[in-house]
């Protein structure tokens, strides 16, 4: 356990040295969480991947903070990263206002961001700038709305009349995997 704490302290020091002032650090149940504004998000994540060895993007979780007390903005995105060689995990949290849902895409850093961002888009409505194919993934193509938002009713089912045409996915140009 102390080895992990040692690793954590080193990472925290490096973050504070490089991104002092813009990135806030938190500790939740022993995990490090870095809170970053949207503007520095891409740089922070690229630095974590290239310099700090967090080469596995585990997940992208969207959150609607409408019913949470003391939330900074309406929406949040949580990026969960893991370093395969170091065995450490870190999370990056970005607060996103309802008025501007543009978020830079991470598909140029990790290929796993492709589908994860598509899901965050269809469930919450984020617009990932630069994504190769930002269309619905899990809900059907005639679905209107973003179901995981708190103001979408739980039982709001929508009928679908035809099966979808997968031409967008067919023609999607997935960029070559970054090394």
């Amino acid at each position, binding site marked *: 356990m102390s080895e992990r704490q040692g690793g954590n302290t080193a990472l925290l020091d490096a973050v504070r040295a490089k991104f002092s002032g813009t990135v806030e650090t938190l500790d*939740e*149940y022993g*995990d490090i969480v870095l809170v970053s504004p949207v503007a520095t998000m891409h740089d922070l994540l690229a630095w974590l991947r290239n310099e700090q060895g967090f*080469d*596995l*993007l*585990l*997940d992208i*979780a*969207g*959150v*609607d903070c409408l*019913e*949470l*007390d003391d939330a900074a903005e309406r929406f949040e995105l*949580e990026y*969960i990263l893991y370093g*395969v060689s170091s*065995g450490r*995990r870190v*999370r990056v949290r970005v607060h996103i206002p309802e008025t501007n849902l543009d978020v830079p895409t991470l598909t140029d850093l*990790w*290929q*796993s961001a*492709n*589908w*994860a961002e598509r899901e965050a888009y269809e*469930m919450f409505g984020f617009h990932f700038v630069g994504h190769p194919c930002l269309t*619905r*993934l*899990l*809900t*059907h193509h005639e679905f209107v709305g973003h*179901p*995981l938002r708190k103001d*979408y009713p*739980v039982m709001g089912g929508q009928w679908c009349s035809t099966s*979808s*045409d*997968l*031409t*967008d*996915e*067919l*023609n*999607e140009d*997935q960029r070559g*995997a*970054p*090394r």
Partner: protein
Amino acid sequence: MGNDTGKTESTPQRGTHDEEFDRGTFEQVLDARRDDFDEGLDLSDLNTQPMFVNIGPTHPATHGTFRVYCKLDGETIEKAGIGVGYLHRGFEKIVETKPYPQVIPYTDRLNYCSSLTNNIAYCKAMERMLGLEVPERTKIIRVVIMEIQRIMDHMICVGTNIVDIGALTNFWYFFNARDHLNSVLEALTGARLTYSYSRIGGLAWDLPEGFRDNVRAALKKVPRAISDVRGLVVKNRIFQDRTRGVGAISTADAISYGWTGPCLRSTGCDLDLRKVAPYYHYDEFEFDVPVGANGDSYDRMLVRIAEMEESLKIVEQGIANIPDGPINVDDKRVMLPSKERVHTTMEGLINHFKVLIEGPKPPVGRIYDATETPNGELGFYIISNGSGQPYRIKVRPPCFYTMAALKYLIEGAMVADIVAVLGGLNVIAGELDR
């Protein structure tokens, strides 16, 4: 050459149906070709068009419902589009309306081939959030049943993968052994597939009599099934041709796609959460982590078969060493009191009522906890707002990320390779779509 937008209504399927086709010229070309036959055919100016084929969602080889829409040039896939979401059941939305313990049956149906592992993964996350430490007996029992589920999940995966390649017998061998293990779990939990046996803070009830002997008897069938399948399949020329080099991926690409679990280990990376961040005394068990070399279908299948043998070792060790003691944490906020207390004391009645109706209330905060399931790393990102119902649960499904790489794996391969690759990725639609 016609338009490639993929609208099959306007794209003729035969070159001879194209408006610009000229039969006379075609026949002249054929006559010329017949003369040239001995010197070899030059097919570079043969009038061909790409064909668009849709595979799924109702298809015997796609286990679970997904679509693969391919643009074919002969048998080679030029481009592919993957369609998922045909089993999207709104897990993340509906659990926001249920108390925490009622989420456990929903987690069962995520990866329904190894339901107990999902239950335990969720309970482990909740216990960490609530600051509970389950007793030693529970830890070892959880390890034993998780490894039994690992054997069962890999049996289904490898069995159905080999069926798709064309060998049906192995499926019956594996299913027979799996049914014996399933009977043991049925005696333990009461259900055949979706067990819901784990609880937040412990287990639903203690082990039945004779559990140890039943497990040992059922486990005896497994090495026989594995050796039968190995003997039939692994050195078979057809099997080797269909799986070696098919769907190969490098470790760097796999990590970029977010792969974990046996699929990542088949590429050469030995990432296993049971070794790297052990929980429930996994560091005290003796077992190895099998690792492949090339990341192709052959390696994926062999890694799974080897993992079954390692899980056998863990179950043997676990079964021999289950400590005595309670199985539930002694915490009133989370556990239901005994029936005697509920029926005789007022405090017991109120405790029972509160825990059942409102659910345990973790402190305000967020947690991400991961477990090594048979498919890879299953993570739960849980946000609590202090009430008895979760504010948000995001599931990190391992096969979501393996499936995302399917487009990369099959483009350039042949149509028949789709099933060889798809079976090896062990995509369970319940977990993929949630």
